[in-house]
């Protein structure tokens, strides 16, 4: 009895020894800083000045005030960020689903296509953004060369306030496509073939098979991807800072995002307080989306 207990105790001690460093890491590098960020967000925190006075919710109030002014950068940042999500997520998922369905149907070269579509995803976003920035160049960029070759009018793309956001979101869609395709393919593989056979015997055509069998059974995969990609687009930063000329989300703030604005506030103007407040808002948005996903998934996963 005593020996068994001591064995158990000894194993527990080993377990604590194994997780001691990681636990300290999570407290010091993840959990502590999360609370610290909340603390910064309720202060006027200029990194250059020794005083960091507590200001309550003033940083949040200022964000709210700016948000109500349609011309402010904050307003543009939130508007643009939601535009990236609203345009990016559905377009990416529809394209990825279409490609996944096509890959599911063909018999040859499947793994080659899979690999090709996946290449942009493993490449660094910075590298890709530089390449696309060059592709979008007026006059000498390959896309405009192609357009003029086809006799179409040249476009300004990144230099046109009306086109810049679309040009950037297209690159983000392009880069993340491969990931969504792989997830869809895995989801499609999990649908039992007998459902299709049963539906075919009932005389369902291709469109009905897609609407009544594939899409409902793919629902958990779709919810998962919508959430994941929404969060990814909400955090847009690298593409915008690399593809806009001064890295400022231009022209005329037409591409600036919440994270880019945070970066410029916090690390350009050293206003850490308002930068932190901005990120707390983003964090709350991401948390709401994640919680909504959990509810949707637990409700709809049974058939």
């Amino acid at each position, binding site marked *: 009895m005593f020996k068994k207990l001591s064995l158990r105790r000894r194993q527990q001690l080993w377990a604590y020894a194994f997780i001691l460093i990681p636990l300290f890491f*999570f407290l010091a590098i993840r959990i502590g800083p999360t609370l610290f960020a909340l603390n910064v967000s309720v202060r006027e925190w200029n990194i250059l000045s020794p005083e960091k006075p507590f200001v309550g919710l003033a940083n949040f109030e200022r964000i709210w005030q700016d948000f109500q002014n349609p011309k402010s950068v904050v307003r543009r940042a939130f508007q643009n960020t939601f535009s990236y999500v609203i345009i990016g997520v559905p377009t990416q998922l529809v394209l990825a689903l279409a490609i996944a369905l096509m890959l599911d149907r063909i018999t040859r070269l499947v793994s080659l296509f899979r690999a090709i579509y996946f290449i942009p995803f493993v490449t660094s*976003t910075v*590298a890709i953004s*530089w390449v696309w920035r060059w592709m979008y160049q007026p006059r000498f960029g390959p896309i405009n060369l192609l357009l003029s070759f086809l006799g179409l009018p040249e476009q300004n793309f990144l230099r046109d306030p009306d086109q810049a956001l679309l040009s950037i979101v297209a690159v983000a869609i392009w880069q993340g496509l491969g990931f969504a395709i*792989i997830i869809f393919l895995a989801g499609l593989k999990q649908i039992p073939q007998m459902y299709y056979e049963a539906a075919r015997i009932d005389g369902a055509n291709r469109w009905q098979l897609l609407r009544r069998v594939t899409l409902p059974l793919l629902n958990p995969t779709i919810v998962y991807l919508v959430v994941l990609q929404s969060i990814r687009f909400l955090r847009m930063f*690298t593409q915008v800072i690399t593809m806009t000329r001064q890295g400022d989300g231009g022209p005329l703030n037409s591409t600036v995002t919440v994270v880019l604005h945070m970066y410029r506030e916090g690390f350009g103007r050293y206003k850490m307080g308002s930068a932190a407040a901005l990120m707390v808002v983003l*964090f709350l948005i991401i948390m709401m989306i994640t919680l909504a996903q959990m509810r949707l998934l637990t409700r709809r996963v049974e058939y």
Partner: protein
Amino acid sequence: MAVSVEQKTHGSRYGIGQRRSEAIVKAICYFFLILGGITMVVPFIWMIATSFKPASEIYMGNFFPKAASLDNYREVILKTLFPRWYLNSFICATLSTLSVVFFDSLVGYTLAKYDFPGKNVIFVLILGTLMVPTEMLVIPWYIMSVDLHWADTYWGIIFPGVITGGGIFLMRQFMSGVPNDLIDAARIDGVSEFGLYWRVALPLVKPALAALAIFNFLGNWNAYIWPLIVSSAREMLTLPVGLAYFSGEASTDWHLIMTANTLSVVPLLAVFVIFQRQIIEGIALTGLKG
């Protein structure tokens, strides 16, 4: 050959008319897949082609170089800090991956195979950190790094990612699959507790470990926002951050950027081509579980 495959899969179930329409559908699929595939590859070909062009050809509009040369490579490697940035990225990605592989698997193993008070709290705590976006944490991390003089050091670049919640979650899943009997038998044979992890459990989850290592290396090699913030000394930049230095106020050296890009992207593409199957299957596996 094509006909026999067709017959094997569909011949028995479809009539001739349906078989023909099936063939048409497939042809349409191939058409669009090839079209999309070209879109995926052309930017990379353009990047590589540009890297061989002399500066004078940059604005000429030819797709492939007329007078291909290695001058750009010579300039990027010999006259810029690019090799240093390359080394920095390599060191940071390697160190962080070694640490992640060791600690994530050790914690995953502990959470899967031991019972101890507080286990569930710790697990939930670790999972909870996954919800906090990096972009919020860069602010406290930066303030910390300035206070502790971690800025412009390798540790400063890698410390946020030396242990990862996602990796722990993944390893816990796979460690749960290691049979308890095996561990108990080894324990009775006198294997130490650390030996049980190191010599019994770890070899059994090698594929998952490899996937974790590859993703982590890629993630660190490509990481941007944190290295951008924490490193300001030019010789301490990582590759993605350093690339911006080829673009000055007045002009952008596109031929040098594309060369540096090619050098930074091609090794990764080689790794991807070699481990293509494992990487894609790893994504499918972990992506669905996460």
